[in-house]
């Protein structure tokens, strides 16, 4: 698939995300409230099928960063969202990938960012 087609599909799935095209991949920046819903849409989309989670980490102490992979497209897709404050909480994505709960526990123990559903080690 060409990069333009991938971009068009991503814009369709995540309408209120800021898309940043870098040399090594495409980055989506979503607000905290859309983290789970955007990832779910990308997971279930039939043309993109982003069903692989490579890593879930924290960037610059304030942004959650996830790398997704797919067997259909060759592009690198990353998704990022600012860390939650006390009002809005970010739910865990471990029901899609069981490995994510270990990533989220590590985020809590190293950076102190709480994610609902994976708090105490």
């Amino acid at each position, binding site marked *: 698939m060409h990069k333009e087609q991938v971009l068009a599909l991503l814009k369709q799935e995540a309408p209120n995300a800021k898309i940043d095209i*870098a*040399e*090594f*991949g495409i*980055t989506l920046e979503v607000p905290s409230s859309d983290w789970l819903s955007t990832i779910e849409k990308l997971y279930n989309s039939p043309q993109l099928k982003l069903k*692989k*989670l*490579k*890593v879930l*980490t924290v*960037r*610059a102490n304030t942004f959650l*960063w996830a*790398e997704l992979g797919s067997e259909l497209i060759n592009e*690198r897709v*990353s998704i990022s969202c600012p860390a939650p404050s006390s009002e809005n909480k970010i739910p865990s994505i471990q029901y899609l*990938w*069981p*490995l994510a709960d*270990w990533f989220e526990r590590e985020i809590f123990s190293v950076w102190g960012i709480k994610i609902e559903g994976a708090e105490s*080690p």
Partner: protein
Amino acid sequence: MSTTIIHESNLMLASSSAGYHGLILEEDGGIITKAKIKFGYTHRQLEACMRAVPYTMANAFAEKADFLAAPFYAFVYSAAVEAVGNIIVPPRGKKIRSILLELCRIQSHIFFLSQIARSLGLTQIHQFCLREREKYCDLFELYCGSRLGFGAILIGGVAEESTDGFLFKCEKTLRDGREFLIEIQEAFINNPILQSRLRGLAYIRKEVVMRLGITGPNARASGVFFGDFPSGSLNNGDSLSRFSQRVEEIKHSLNAVEKELNLPEGAYSVDVDDKFSPRKTNVLTNVEGPRGQINVLLFSSGNNRAEQVRLVPPSYASLRHVDDLLLGVHIDDAALIINSLDISFSEVDR
């Protein structure tokens, strides 16, 4: 009536490769009813150390993540920095790198064989496999001075010029490697103790492999193939197929190194110094290591230190499944299951 066993182990007791882990078990008449594996004891903050030094010096920290596959971690980190900084490695350097990586893979798989032999009680085979592994450590020592391959692969190429003596000794070691496999065929691979104990132990199904993201020989032994890697004789996901998959990979690597032994002319590396400052971006690189796929996510800032480096070890995904694999299994087989997954706890903790 159930008893709780807290089993703390280090390299010498039960674990296969590396590091320190704990295992809390509840058993009832010898059968395990609950299991929880604990790790994180040897967290040395390698990624924080890599942020505190310039790019060229952070190679040393990346290697210590998994010391049995040290050139692989150095390679994937260097590839990330080279992608960000537009450094092109000359072809001679690339060939030397691929020779070193395949030798390291063979060495790691032979160590796996020796750990399986030790946990089955076949101590003579354990010493025999270690003797074979020493020959590969000799090759690394001839090349870069370190028996484990520390400091062999650097940003921009490799550390040393490869000499004719090194290539000649490589050929001789590969011939010995083939004889080694023939010699252990009857004593070890067709050993009735090994066949009966490993057969049918700890099945990992295909769906679990896809869902957890297990890569490497563990995934290939369950029938999930990506790319052109060899397949063992059995693919049903039990411990015996994981074992025979790695034996097959040793054979494949021995053949692959032989083809690479004539090097092109030219320089073996490009000079990169401490003040090298790439542009601000992020990149994800990967390599297929002996335990699975190693990912490195590099965020570079404008100056000569990385903003963040994230190493994602391949044993993470296999380890996640161990808690479920240990249920309903006899307590004597617990160590064997952890050994057959070839988990390196020092890379899980980093």
